[in-house]
Each structure stands twice: as C-alpha cells, then as structure tokens.
C-alpha cells in the first residue's frame, strides 16, 4: 500500500495530515480492504524517511476515528466496519471546498453564483 502514498515535505500540509488523508482515501477507495494489515510505524517511517512520531500521530488518529483497529501484540489493520463512512467521505472534500469558497470571496463571486457554476461544471 505504501506505493500508493506520496509524502511531500514542501507541501502546505504537515506530513501527519498528508498520511492521514491519503490512508483514508485508500480505505474509502477500496485500494486497501477491511482486515488488511498495515506495515509497522517504523517501516512506514523508514519508507518515507520521516520521523516515526509523525507516522504514529497519523495512525493514532485513524484508530481513534475508527478507520483502523489496533489490538495488543498484533499489526494495525483496516477496521471491519468503518462507521459514519459517508460523513467521513464527504469531509474529504472540505479542504478543496474551503479553498474554492475563499477564492470566490476574493473575486466577489456570490454564493448563489458559485453554486450555479458548480452545477454547470458538474454537468459538463
């Protein structure tokens, strides 16, 4: 699964967020299946040459949010039933939407026009 993930230390996002977001996308997109084992924190850290604490933070959040399961003495796995998945799926779009809204505000494009534009582009 690591080959699907790309870490960019020069990006605007902290590395733990990049890992978190991409792993969620892989789960939602089905590239990694329920029950599948994740490599160890250390292996992930070595692969991307990043601080293992950063990886730990991302994995910890994914466990807290129910995406991953961690049992004592076992590898971390993708959770069997990822509850509230639709909510989470939609929340993946928030960042892009927020950027869009910000740009619309800068250009003085009103909300209704923006909604109209999205509709038009959607139907292209």
């Amino acid at each position: 699964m690591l080959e699907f993930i790309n870490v960019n230390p020069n990006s605007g996002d902290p590395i733990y967020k990049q890992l978190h977001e991409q792993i969620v996308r892989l789960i939602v997109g089905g590239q990694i299946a329920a029950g599948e084992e994740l490599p160890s924190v250390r292996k992930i850290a070595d692969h991307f040459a990043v601080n293992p604490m950063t990886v730990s933070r991302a994995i910890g959040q994914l466990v807290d949010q129910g995406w991953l399961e961690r049992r004592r003495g076992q590898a971390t796995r993708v959770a069997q039933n990822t509850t509230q998945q639709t909510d989470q799926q939609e929340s993946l779009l928030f960042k892009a939407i927020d950027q869009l809204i910000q740009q619309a505000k800068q250009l003085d494009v009103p909300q209704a026009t923006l909604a109209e534009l999205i509709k038009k582009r959607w139907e292209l």
Partner: protein
Amino acid sequence: MTRPLLSYKNVSKQYNQRQILNNINLNVEPGMVIGLLGKNGAGKTTLLRSALGLITPDQGEIQVLGELSHQLSASSKQKIGYVAQQTFGYEGFKIADALALHRSFYPNWDMQLEAKWLARFELNSKDAINDLSIGQRQTLALIMAMAYRPQLLILDEPVASLDPIARREFMSDLFDLALDSGSGILFSSHITSDIERVASHIALIKQGELLLLDELDVIRDTVRKVSFKESTIDLSAYTILNRQQNCAIIYGYTGETVVGALAINTLSLEQLFVELHG
C-alpha cells in the same frame, strides 16, 4: 518528569558589542529531535557550541546531562556527540587509523554499527582521509559522533554535503538513536524539507532570539499567513510572529473565522522561514 538532557536558561552572549544570543530558553529532552532553523549569522553555531562548553555565555546557565556546560566531566563528554559545520581533523590518517584513535576515547563504541555504516556509505577503511570528498568526510564525522550512541547529539549543518540517499539513511539512524536509545538531538540545517521530515520540534532563531519553539506539527497546524486590507484588523488572539502592511504571520490559529481577513493560508516550513525574514 524526565530531566532534560540539555537546558539553556536565560542564555545571552555578546561579541564585540553585538548581541549574538539574547535570553535563550530551550530544553532538549529524551526522544526529541529539535531542528534549529535560522539565517546565516542568526546565532545557531554559537548556540550549539555553547552547549559543549566551547563558548561560555555572558549571562544565564547551560546544563548538559545535569552538569554545567563549561565544567563537563570526562564521563559526560563521552555521552555527547558533536559534528561541527566544517573542518575535520585526522589529516594524513587512513580511515581505519582515524577510527581506531577516535574509538579509544569512547568505551561504549559499537563496532557493529561502525562496520554497518562504513559498508552502507561505501567507505573503504584503507582510504586516506585526505582523499575523501567533502560528503565522505561528513559521513565519517557522523559515524564518529554516533557510533557510541551518545545521549545527546549536537549537529551543526550535518547533512549539507550528503546526497539524498545518504541523507535518508542518516535520518533513519537518527530515529534509532532518538527513539530506541532515548537520546536527544539538536541539529541545525538549512534544508527545510529535511527538517520537516526529521524534526519532532522546531526552534527558530532570528538575530539571536528564539522566535518560535514548539512541536513541528503544532507549528504546521497553527501558524498561518493572514492577508488583509485594513490595518485595523484584530489579531490580538494570536501571537504575531511578523507583521507587514497587508499581511501577518500568526501563531495559535485553530480554524476560526478572522473578521477582516482576505485569506488565511498555511505555510510550509520553507515559506514560513522566508516570510519571517521578509
């Protein structure tokens, strides 16, 4: 609470009436990898050298492994690793002889680690130091500073001459040291993408002052560039790291709306560095 491996308390230093360090407070605790970021001449090297007792502060106190930095015992010195920005002794030696001499000062030297690193970085122990490239010398200096698993490792621009592969290998070794052996690491670098990968904490110094000190992720999460038209914008809820006519760098942002802000943008470490020196 664990005792810090290195602590600066209100440390100041002047040279020729120029303030090089201004009231620095900083703790390095086990497991921390602190990236020290600052322009040339900001005081990074002075800060690092003063921890080794090579420079005595005018004011304040530096404690290293529980002792004062300018009165370090021999046994404490054996637990500290240091790689200087440049220079390297052992001219006229072969790698093997230089390592043998260096090793004799450190009872905890790990021969396996030394062998592993020599092989990994493709250094031939029969080669003369004089014939090594700058990058190879730097690698050897790192081996010499790390093969006894120091409790405190101080690195001044350690990787500037290493190629990207060697830098990655070296970073992985740093984590071994910090996380498995519980050592603390304080290193300066200009390569912000490396700091971004490696550091748990960032210390940003500007003109001798510690401008920012926090976990890297906290800095990345809460530092923002705010753009505005009206200079009356209320930013009093935040620490202001830098303010220009139409924008400011704030610290402590948690996702709320800021009245009067045209844009609130995240910054990479490199962007932050550049913005703070604008």
